[in-house]
């Protein structure tokens, strides 16, 4: 199976984020970066599939120079080769813009399976993988905890609410969005890092992929949320409470 894992490098969990002077993004200068958490689970799922069924795991990452460390970490953990889409303007692209880049690169490889993390730790759109599937014209499934290969394709376990799970069968090729926590992650080893040095690390620029496309959603401004504390319990039946809630959201909180 040829599996592509789309991995994003995000500011590390602990980071003290500050808004940059332009007010449109966070100050990146003194941040530490790490692999997006659900992407790490996607990578682990891919590696386990390769160990069971053979094939190849390719890391696909878009971003500036610094994403190299995260790519190497993925190679150290067992991915076979990497594609780095060089893009310095990733924060100015919306989910569609990013998905276009990733899908173009992925299409060139004709993979059997594309795995992405469920959502990113910084923006949390949860859309990139879904859009990729649409652009690539293949089926997708999200919130995946476990992937198994069958004779006809895949069977996957989806996480629903309240402790419910759903098992779905789907054909290959497909795109899956992997949820965190479904399996145990492996640690990076010295041997892995040494082997990673000789693995193929291909760089491709955004323009080469022909994925120009203006973003359809533009990030206007980032602010810190104002901290306020106010709790109101809304009485009445569901219909009455909903009406009351809409009133309040319109006139008191003013978000509608």
């Amino acid at each position, binding site marked *: 199976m040829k599996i592509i894992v789309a991995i994003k490098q995000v500011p590390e*969990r602990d980071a003290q984020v500050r808004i940059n002077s332009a007010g449109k993004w966070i100050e990146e200068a003194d941040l530490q970066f790490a692999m997006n958490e659900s992407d790490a689970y996607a990578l682990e799922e891919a590696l386990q599939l390769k160990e069971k069924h053979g094939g190849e795991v390719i890391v696909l990452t878009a971003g500036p120079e610094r994403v190299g460390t995260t790519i190497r970490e993925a190679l150290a953990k067992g991915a076979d080769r990497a594609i780095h889409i060089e893009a310095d303007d990733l924060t100015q692209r919306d989910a569609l813009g990013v998905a276009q880049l990733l899908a173009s690169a992925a299409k060139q490889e004709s993979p059997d399976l594309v795995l992405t993390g469920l959502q990113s730790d910084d923006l949390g759109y949860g859309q990139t993988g879904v859009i990729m599937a649409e652009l690539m014209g293949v089926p997708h499934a999200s919130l995946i905890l476990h992937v198994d290969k069958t004779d006809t394709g895949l069977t996957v376990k989806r996480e629903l609410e309240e402790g419910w799970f759903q098992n779905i069968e789907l054909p290959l090729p497909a795109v899956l969005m992997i949820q965190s926590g479904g399996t145990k992650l492996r640690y990076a080893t010295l041997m892995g890092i040494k082997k990673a040095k000789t693995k193929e690390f291909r760089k491709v620029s955004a323009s080469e992929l022909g994925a120009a496309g203006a973003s359809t959603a533009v990030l206007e401004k980032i602010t810190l949320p104002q901290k306020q504390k106010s709790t109101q319990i809304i009485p009445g039946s569901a219909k009455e409470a909903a009406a009351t809630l809409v009133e309040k959201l319109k006139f008191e909180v003013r978000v509608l």
Partner: protein
Amino acid sequence: MNILSATLAEPHSFSPWEKLLLVASMVASAALFCRRLGPILKRILKSRKDPNFSLAPVGKRVWDFFWEVLCQAKVIRERPLPGLAHAFVFWGFCAFALVTVNHIAVGLGVGFLDPHGLVGGFYFYFAAAFAIACAVGIFGLFVRRFVVRPRWLGGKVSYESGVIALLIFLLMVTYLAAFAVSDASPSARILWWTHTLSLLIFLPIIPHTKHLHLVLSPATIFLSRGGFSKIPPLVGDEDFGLVAGTDLTQLVSLQAYSCVECGRCSEHCPATNTGKELNPKEIILGLRSYLNEFGPTSQESLIGKFNSMTADFQCTTCGSCEYQCPVGIEHLPILIGLRRGAVNTGKWEDDHGAKLFLALERGSNALGMGALERDKFIQKQQFPIFDGTQEYCLWLGCMGGYDPKGREIIADFARVMNYLGTSYGVLRKEKCTGDPVRRLGNDLLFQQLAESNLEALAQNKVKKIVSICPHCVRTIQEDWKEFGTPPEIEHHSEFLASFADKLPNQTDGRVPQVPVSGPGNQKIVFHDPCYLGRYRNVYDEPRAVVSLAGELVEAPRSHQRSFCCGAGGGLAFLGEETGDRVSHTRAKELVATGASIIGTACPFCNTMFRDALSATGKAGPQLLDIAQLTARGLPSANAAIGVTTPGGSSRE
């Protein structure tokens, strides 16, 4: 017969046949000896060369040789009675050197020491004294091994040891008996031949198993790595630690073949003493068996062949084994080398271990907590931030920054430093020193942490560090050297002891808030942390501090024999132990001293004992770090905050 006028009988005139027989048997004995020793020496020499090994400083090596080999100091000190018996046997052998040479010479008709002369006569009496001591010694050791049967010698009866003991006894007795007969008597000849045959049978038995130490151990002691738990650096891109036979170095092979199977390492091992699979003696003998079967050029994995992964990861790296070994075996680099082989190649699969590694891959501390937590703690305590102008950088460490008990210790230590007027600051950001991953054998993570920290310290212009954790101290001072030049660092016990005259003396009743429960002061039993005691040789300083706070009492196993709390070697982060809990075992021992306070100098020891004490259920002694013991004696304004209630619990 007058004892004083007795002289050693030397048979005269051996016939040519006898001389021929003598030479032939000497040749046969020597040949057999060489044929057995040869392959072993070859295996040792064919092993990989040790990187970074240098004979300098030779002075220390010569001293160790003199003290440990010739004076048998460690042999005697750690097991006095059997040790002395062994020393007599050894010294007997040494004293007998000339006797033996002369004995053979007599057989060939060229004896050079005249029993009736001044030199010869004196020497033979001198040797006779040693012969008596040796005979008594070997007899005692025989009784110990075959009648008393101490458990650390192992369950199997070693017939070979019995044969050796008999031969040695025979050698001494035939020598002594020769004083009672005359030169010309047939008994003299019989005694002479018995002595000779005993000698010639003894020689080829030496390369067999543990008796090889007669030949090897002086070299092993002389050629030790130096230091304590000296972990060799990895060399090149293919080196991942001790993975296969090809990774065994000459030192490791030499040490594996030197093992005397005395069991002193096992006797003091916290794992072996609490029913775990790990037995340091078996680790070393396992390597010996591997070398015998596969050799030093084999690609067969070391783990699984006479060595189990489970056992390897039960070691707390307390160092008792390496400290106790009388023949110079250095267990820790070997054990950590085996762990490296398992971790650096990804072979080790352990949920807790992976969790620890992932926490440090993604975050800054071993407890997996957010760095914001440490920031909040610093803000709440209003610690000054290190800006390059202060004298000391106070290193919080993972325990001091994130563990509730560790934080109490830091807060109290800071209080003491404020009282002393020391200028210090804490770093805005710290990463784990890497101690647990270093001892678990994860060199990738360790290198990343060491290099990142060294860079941060250099940028912040840190020159001197003081830390409450012996693990941080050791790792920063020694292990980081592989990747750069670490700043000076001292443990807070060393710091406090250097200001002992300025610290309040709580034992004279003048410090009101310290209860002087009559008669006399509170008894405080001090537990020597492994990484402060055996690793750093610091024993007096924490005691000086404890003595200011109360009456110091010693645990049955203290100083170099201190019994581990169980947290070291990364084990504090791994899962549930099998067998008895190491921490509970030690806590029981400390409680049994009757002290009302257990004094610690390591946040890991502290946390382990806190769990152990609360598990017993009943009200036990208080558990206080030396910083807390000191702080409680400070003038009330300072000491009011962060008071600990009996039982070791506290409010934040």
